[in-house]
């Protein structure tokens, strides 16, 4: 792989990664949100795969394949199973912030990400580090999704996006954390999403829905 192809593929992956986050803010249908999350997982896995091929690093390619299986296949499947079958459960209810405002906020957060990541790029101005604002933007957008959505499942999606953003940052700036930490962290995320999926099931049975506005028993 030449330097130019490497740069091109890396930037394409980072761009697709950010685009998936923006589309998740735009969409309300839970099934398409989960599908977008799978696309985001593919874009994420492309980063270590590209770097692994470019640097002839077999370990990184293996990590990339694991990331692909976990974040583009396993976790979205888990979430898709948790999406209810009742019609009322398949869409995000009226959002706290309307779509236009949400997209404007998303743009603002992306600019903020460029400002926040300046010290990182200053320390190591390599092609991969230059893509890190996209990863940080996804982190900020994920937090925004978590605070502005009302379905339990949307919060789980926000959490996974947050995690994708952090993983992308790690791959872009350090070619991934040490293997033992990467494995442990992936296992933790898998369990956390499993727990969230189980909890949505319990909630639907107990509350008859997953609108988080119903969570108002514990106050003060």
């Amino acid at each position, binding site marked *: 792989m030449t330097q130019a192809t490497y740069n091109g593929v890396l930037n394409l992956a980072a761009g697709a990664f950010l685009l998936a986050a923006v589309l998740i803010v735009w969409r309300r249908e839970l099934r398409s949100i989960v599908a977008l999350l799978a696309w985001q997982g593919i874009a994420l896995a492309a980063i270590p795969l590209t770097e692994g091929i470019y640097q002839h690093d077999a370990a990184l390619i293996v990590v990339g394949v694991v990331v692909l299986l976990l974040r583009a296949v396993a976790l979205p499947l888990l979430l898709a199973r948790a999406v209810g079958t009742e019609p009322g459960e398949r869409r995000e209810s009226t959002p706290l912030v309307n779509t236009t405002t949400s997209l404007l906020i998303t743009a603002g957060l992306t600019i903020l990400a460029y400002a926040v990541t300046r010290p990182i790029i200053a320390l190591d101005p390599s092609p991969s580090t230059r893509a890190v604002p996209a990863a940080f933007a996804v982190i900020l957008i994920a937090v925004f999704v978590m605070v502005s959505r009302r379905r339990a499942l949307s919060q789980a999606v926000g959490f996974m996006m947050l*995690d994708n953003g952090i993983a992308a940052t790690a791959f872009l700036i350090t070619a991934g954390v040490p293997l033992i930490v990467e494995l442990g962290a992936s296992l933790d995320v898998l369990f956390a999403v499993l727990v969230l999926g189980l909890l949505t099931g319990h909630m639907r049975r107990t509350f008859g829905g997953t609108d988080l506005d119903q969570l108002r*028993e514990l106050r003060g």
Partner: protein
Amino acid sequence: MSFLLLVPIAAPLAAAALAAVLGWRRLTSSVTVAAALSVLVSAVILSFNNRSQVRFGILNLFRTDALSITMLIVIGTVGTLATVASIGYIDAELAHGHTDAKGANLYGVLVPIFLAAMASAVLANNIGVMWVAIEATTVATAFLVGHRRTRAALEATWKYVVICSVGIALAFLGTVLLYFASLHAGASSGDALNIDVLLAHASRLDPAVTRLGAGLLLLGYGAKAGLVPFHTWLADAHSQAPAPVSALMSGVLLSVAFYALLRVKSVVDLAVGTGFLRTGLIIVGLLTLLIAASLLLVQTDFKRMLAYSSMENMGLVAVAAAAGTKLAIAALLLHVLAHGIAKSLVFLGSGQLQAAHDSTQISDVTGVLARSPMIGATFLVGLAILLGLPPFAMFASELSISRALAGAGLGWVLGAALLLVVVAFAALVRNGARMLLGPPAPGSPAIAVPRSVSAALVTGVILSLVLGLTVGPLLELFQTAASVLGGNR
């Protein structure tokens, strides 16, 4: 000796495996108690064996020094008290139909896993492994918080998992940034996250990236330690969890999360100076104290009251860490140990009160001292410790923290903290008196106290008295731990 390092992790895991195979029964719950006790015993043996030494195990992924030994003592002590009391608590829950055999089995497996995760967190040399262990505590405790499967328990679990996972994810981002800085400071990729390597390279870490990472780590681990701004899960989770788990979460888990912050602080202070995290800790510490004290004033639920008292204490610990002197850190560690034991006393007692009244409202509970001298007296001792009354250890620790703050030139922080502690004091006294003293309301139900709960409570009171009267050999351990963190004034 290096196998001793793994006992605190392996023993609870073995107990969990046994509980998974055999289910909840006297044998498995006793083995869990033995595992918790083995955490304490191995910590004591390690501390007698040249306590200033730093030991490493398994590819340098794990380490012990005076600080991790101190934390193991806290985990072992509170873990033993809580697992002993679990025997009677779960049997009573089964008898009342609040849980079923499946729930009891799950409890039997998750509690030792929770202990093992906390032990791994304080033994980790690699701060990435430390992060994995702390996130594992969230996963292990999720279904413990939701043990009763009621609406309130479910709501508490959801908030707990979502808020703590987001918080801890930010801590992971901070860890990644430290790794990035460490690689650029010349560390090799395999061990760039090891505490000893980070300390050795600290002076060459890029200040701007380190500050960004440190801020994220403060927010992230602060979420697990019950500090502002991600504190909103704490009262819900601690009040809905089964009493022995509340004791573990309030008494140990919060301080284990804060331990992670202390470890990170020792590196960050060397890299960017003490000012950065000092300012951060003072802000979150004082805000946490403020919120805890105000919510204590209006509290009508006794388990939530105890949870906010934990928040208040973590705020105080954060302020002490901001001072960062040797005296402050040693006092902080004594405070953490005394707080752990006190919270075991009050939470275990509150579990029996909740079982008797089927309510956690302060107004439903009257005349406890007259109705059950065992629960009443031990609850009173627990409250006295939390109030910082002599002869108990938190009197000494709060006094030393005050002296340390004054000595570090943080007089205004001391003033603000003292004011808020006094507010919390008044609220605890008022609510405590309402529940414990005076004649019981007519028709109050009998308070049952299982033998195992009494045993844990009496042991806790004895330990508190001993710790209050003489810190003994622990003082040297705390001081060594403080110098490990670089507090050398």
